[in-house]
């Protein structure tokens, strides 16, 4: 009974995939860039099993952060090639799923969607990334929690304030958890500071902001 179920499911999958014009080695790639990487690149390999050449009509990505390039515009019968999808990580976090839609001329509307899933490792999780005091508030310290990502070991962090108007104190709670206490000298003036948070032995830098803001606008 189990064999019949597996065979049935496989036949559905195979019959559906037989509709694709080019045979793709993979239509889904999962990438795990390092924290230092600025880009994640996926190589989608294909071959043309048919008897006629296949032309690419269009290749476009789901967002401006991803570019896709074909090696050639025409794939001869039996020919192989690949589409390179480059995802610019920028300041994105978490799991990013971007797609590249490929259209060919072999049949009407022959379209394949290639999926690039990028798991961006988060070395530090900072909450919140913004602390503020209203003008005139008591300059009590506020806390920013910092936690090392699941796959990382962070023993120490270094915190620097871009402005002497704010003092910072780091408390190591162990197990990759830290507490940053931020305190302004006073809250009379509208001043701000960018807090640079850097894990020990790491080039990657993280940021938080401390600021004295205007009092709420009264409508």
């Amino acid at each position, binding site marked *: 009974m189990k064999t019949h179920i597996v065979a049935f499911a496989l036949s559905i999958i195979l019959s559906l995939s037989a509709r694709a014009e080019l045979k793709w080695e993979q239509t889904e790639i999962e990438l795990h860039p390092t924290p230092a990487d600025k880009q994640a690149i996926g190589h989608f390999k294909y071959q043309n099993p048919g008897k006629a050449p296949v032309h690419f009509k269009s290749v476009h990505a789901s967002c401006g952060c991803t570019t896709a390039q074909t090696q050639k515009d025409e794939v001869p019968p039996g020919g192989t090639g690949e589409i390179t999808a480059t995802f610019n990580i920028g300041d994105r976090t978490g799991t990013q799923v971007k797609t590249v839609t490929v259209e060919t001329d072999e049949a009407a509307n022959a379209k394949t969607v290639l999926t690039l899933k990028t798991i961006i490792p988060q070395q530090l999780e900072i909450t919140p990334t913004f602390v503020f005091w209203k003008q005139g508030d008591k300059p009590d310290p506020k806390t920013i929690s910092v936690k090392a990502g699941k796959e990382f070991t962070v023993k120490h962090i270094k915190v620097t304030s871009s402005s002497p108007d704010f003092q910072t104190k780091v408390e190591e709670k162990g197990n990759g958890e830290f507490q940053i206490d931020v305190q302004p000298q006073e809250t009379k003036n509208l001043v701000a500071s960018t807090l640079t948070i850097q894990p020990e032995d790491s080039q990657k830098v993280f940021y938080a*902001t401390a*600021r004295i803001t205007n009092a709420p606008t009264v409508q």
Partner: protein
Amino acid sequence: MRSSLVGQVLILAAVALAPALGEAIWFHDKISWASPISPSESVTVDEAHTWGATAIWVDARPDDEFARDHVPGALSLNEDRWNELLPQFLAAWSPGKKVVVYCSAESCDLAREAAERLRKEAQISDVFVLQGGWEAWLKKNR
């Protein structure tokens, strides 16, 4: 035997309905049944206009689209350069301000994602996504 099976299915379906209804009532203001954005988290162009100077407009589209055209006075805040652009947004923000985030259209997710990051990471409240996005703003204003 057949009716017993049907009876069992109906009983299970009914039993599961009770807590589901309770949950739906509990979350009634957290989720919109009409559109994928929560009613407390989205705003129409007309509503946003009534906020006047207390609204900060945030453009979540890529740099080139922002450069081409944007809501007058809007700040660019996209995920390509989030760390670089965030400070200028924070400089413009103060408690009591309402943040209106937009991207190209209703179907675009960039505004929702940017709004989510402002709420979760910066813990800023009163962040709204513009219904219909840039397209909706253009229809009302141009």
